[in-house]
């Protein structure tokens, strides 16, 4: 892979829950417009690591960190950096679809746009349409934008959540097992979508599914017991892992 500009990175990042260490001393970088998979068995710290990147981790009771998270070279945990502003630059999609049940499809997508004062009507319509198109949902919902978002299928809801996350034009998109609650058809649509989205965003995706990591990602990082065991180009990590634990995990001997 050619040298690429680093968008997001961590420097000796350790994440704690009270006295329990969930992520140990991880230094990692994510290049611009790349898809980066985080894999590892349950409880290995990959989700916690993901949640430190947009400072969601600190909202969990007892959550704190040491080390740095660097977005475009700036430490996001520095005093004076607003977590709210950061989360508009680093969007997140969760394991279960979380459409806002009281809002229409349109309002769901527009939900993140209304924070910096209301955008103009026409402008907002444009952004909603663009986001839904980017999330490959526009054709399915364009005739019912004003209807309830919870009437959509699970896969559609998840694509709606992706549209909602990308509407404010973040730089980075964090996906926390985005296909865990979807059927195979919904899963493959999201995977295709991830491939498209990397043209515009830097993506970090946590997944339980190794085939998925192999299919969609440029780099893969393997976590085990809170430590980063190995990271590298996806093809290399899956075909010629350097660490024994990585090999054991990807060949299905544990986890």
């Amino acid at each position: 892979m050619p040298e690429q500009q680093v968008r997001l990175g961590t420097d000796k990042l350790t994440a704690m829950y009270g006295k329990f260490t969930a992520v140990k001393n991880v230094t990692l970088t994510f290049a611009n417009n790349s898809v980066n998979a985080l894999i590892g068995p349950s409880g290995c710290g990959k989700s916690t690591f993901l949640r430190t990147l947009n400072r969601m981790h600190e909202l969990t009771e007892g959550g704190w960190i040491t080390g740095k998270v660097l977005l475009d070279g700036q430490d996001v945990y520095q005093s004076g950096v607003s977590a709210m502003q950061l989360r508009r630059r680093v969007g997140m999609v969760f394991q279960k679809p979380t459409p806002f049940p009281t809002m229409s499809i349109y309002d769901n997508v527009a939900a993140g746009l209304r924070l910096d004062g209301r955008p103009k009507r026409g402008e907002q319509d444009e952004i909603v349409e663009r986001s839904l198109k980017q999330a490959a949902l526009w054709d399915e919902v364009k005739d019912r934008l004003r209807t309830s978002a919870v009437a959509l299928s699970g896969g559609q809801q998840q694509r709606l959540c992706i549209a909602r996350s990308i509407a404010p034009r973040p730089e980075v998109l964090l996906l926390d097992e985005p296909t865990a609650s979807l059927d195979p058809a919904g899963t493959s649509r999201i995977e295709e979508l991830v491939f498209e989205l990397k043209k515009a965003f830097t993506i970090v995706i946590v997944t339980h599914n190794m085939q998925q990591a192999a299919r969609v990602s440029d780099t893969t990082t393997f976590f085990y017991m809170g430590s980063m065991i190995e990271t590298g180009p996806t093809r290399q990590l899956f075909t010629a892992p350097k660490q024994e634990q990585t090999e054991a995990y990807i060949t299905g001997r544990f986890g």
Partner: protein
Amino acid sequence: MNRRVLRRWISNFMVGLMVVAVILAVLPLLFILFNLVLKGASSLSIDFFTKLPVPAGETGGGVAHAIVGTLLIVGLASLFGVPLGIGAGIYCAEYPGSRLTKVTRFVADVMNGTPSIVVGVFAWTWIVARQKHFSAVAGSAALAMLMIPMVMRTTEELIKLVPHSLREAGLALGYPRWRTSLSIILRTALPGIVTGSLLAVARIAGETAPLLFTALGSQYMNFNVNQPMAALPLVVFQYATGPYEEWHQLAWASALVLILVVFVLSVGARLATRRRFHA
């Protein structure tokens, strides 16, 4: 095969028991309604809703003053009770670990179990005895005190029912916490909170004991909440215990109207919970 038959028998028997339980639970309610309609409906007339009471012994007259009184007293109580209850409920749901929450929740639970006449005595001591006269305001204060813990606990429980993932989704979009609470969490729980509040209003509309020595009751049409005021439950109490047949008739009719008011509020609560969207 034998076992399957036995199982089916037991199943049918248990279902039968449940049906009996349901009938036993609903029967008294139906009986009350039936009785009220039977004895009260004949006295319902335009006069009943528009006229004031006539001197004892004469026929005719109505309870317009009590209908107005109930609306005023309950309205005033709700004006204070609903916002305070909802506010306290939101606080308890948002800050479940704080000491203030634990104290508030405990006090609310105790108040929910307090007999309403005790609350009436309290209002008498603090408002009536100080002002040295009975007033509708004192009655409203007593009713509001009964209402706040009910509304508070419902609000808290309903907010807690909103999935945590929705809160996280809001925060992950860059919403500040207060905005997540208001425009996502509260908005999702709102239909339930409206229902809970209306049911609390319906509950206190029928309270008699707290009004006995606060609003006291009155024979006149009165819009001044600083004066004693009539209310439907008080009219029922006064007329039902009186010696005249006409009074008994009015008591039945008033009770019927009271039940209808509660019924309308409950139906309103149902309508409020209906989804905004029809998919």
